[in-house]
C-alpha cells in the first residue's frame, strides 16, 4: 500500500461509495419511487466506474479534429481515451431509462390496485389477502388451511 497505489485507486473507491449509497436507498427505503431513484444512482455509479477504466491520463476525447476545409489531420502525438467503454455505456444509459420507465409504470399500476406505494403497507395487504384466501379455501375443504 504505497501512495501511488492509493492515488491510482481512490477514484474507484469513491465510485463504490456512490454505488453503495444507491444500494442503501434501495434496501432501506420503503417507498417504491425512492427505490427506483436509488437504483438509478447505483446504475450511474457503475457507468462512472466503466468510463473511468477507459480514461488515459493526459488523454482527450476520441474525436479527431479537422481544419476549416473539413480535412482530417491526425496528429500522432495526441493521446485519445479508450472509446469502447463510452460506446457500451451509451447503450446502457438508454436501456436504463427504458427499464426505469417500465418500473415507474408498474408503480402506477400498484398504486391503482392497492392505493399505496409503501412496501410495508403492501406486505400487510398481501398478508390480509392470503389469510382471507386461506380461510375461504380451508372452510371449503372442511378444516383449517
Amino acid at each position, binding site marked *: 500500500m504505497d501512495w501511488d*497505489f492509493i492515488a*491510482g*485507486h*481512490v*477514484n*474507484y*473507491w*469513491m465510485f*463504490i461509495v*456512490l*454505488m453503495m449509497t*444507491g*444500494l*442503501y436507498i434501495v434496501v*432501506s*427505503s*420503503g*417507498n417504491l*419511487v425512492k427505490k427506483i*431513484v436509488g437504483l*438509478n444512482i447505483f446504475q*450511474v455509479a457503475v457507468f*462512472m466506474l466503466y*468510463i*473511468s*477504466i*477507459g*480514461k*488515459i491520463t*493526459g488523454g482527450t476525447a*476520441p*474525436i*479527431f479534429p*479537422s481544419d476549416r476545409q473539413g480535412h*482530417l489531420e*491526425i496528429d500522432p502525438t495526441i*493521446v*485519445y*481515451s*479508450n*472509446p*469502447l*467503454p*463510452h*460506446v457500451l455505456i*451509451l*447503450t446502457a*444509459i*438508454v*436501456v436504463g*431509462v*427504458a*427499464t*426505469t*420507465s417500465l418500473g*415507474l409504470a408498474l408503480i*402506477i*399500476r400498484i398504486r*391503482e390496485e392497492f392505493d*399505496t406505494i409503501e412496501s410495508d403497507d403492501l406486505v400487510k395487504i398481501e398478508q390480509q389477502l392470503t389469510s382471507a384466501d386461506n380461510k375461504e379455501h380451508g372452510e371449503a375443504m372442511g378444516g383449517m388451511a
Partner: protein
Amino acid sequence: MTETIINFILFAMLISTAFAIVRMTSLFAVIMLASVFSLLTALLFVTLDAVDVAFTEAAVGAGISTVLMLGTMALTARHAKPQTQSNAIPFLVVCVTGAALIYGTMDMPNFGDPNAPAQVHVAPEYLERSIEEIDVPNVVTAILASYRGYDTLGETAVVFAAGIGVLLLLSGLARRRKEDEEEGDI
C-alpha cells in the same frame, strides 16, 4: 493535477447529493436531487473524456427520467413515509458489499494508466482504423453506429419492448378511474 481537483470537487457534490436523497422524505425533492445528481454525473463524464456519454446522460438521465418520475409522482403520492424499522441490517449489507467491491479493485490497474489491459488490446486498432474504414471523425459514433451497429439495433429493440410494456400496463388507466368514480356516485 487540475483534473484530479475537479474530480474530487465533483465527487464531494455527488456524495452530498446522494446522502441528501437518503434523508429526504418529500418525493419532489428526491426527484429533483436525482436530476441534480445526473447533471453532476454528466460533468464528471466530461472530465473523464466521455463527451458523448455526458450529453446522453444530461439529456436522458437529467431530462427524460426526471419527467417520467415527476409524472409518476403526480399519479401516485407526494411524500414517502418516514422509516420505522431500524437501519442496522441494510447498513450492514451495504458495508459488506462495499468491502467486497473494494477488495475487487485491489488488482485493478491505476486510474489513467496508459498501459492498462483495457487500453492496449483492441482500442488502439479502433482508433487507428476507424478513420479509413468509416470516415467519421468521432470514433464513438463510428463504433456505435457501424462496428457495433447490431448492438444499437438490439438496444432499440429493448426500448421498443419497454415502450410496449409501459403502454400495456397503463392503457385504460383513465377509463378504469372514470368507472370507479361512477361506481362511487351510485
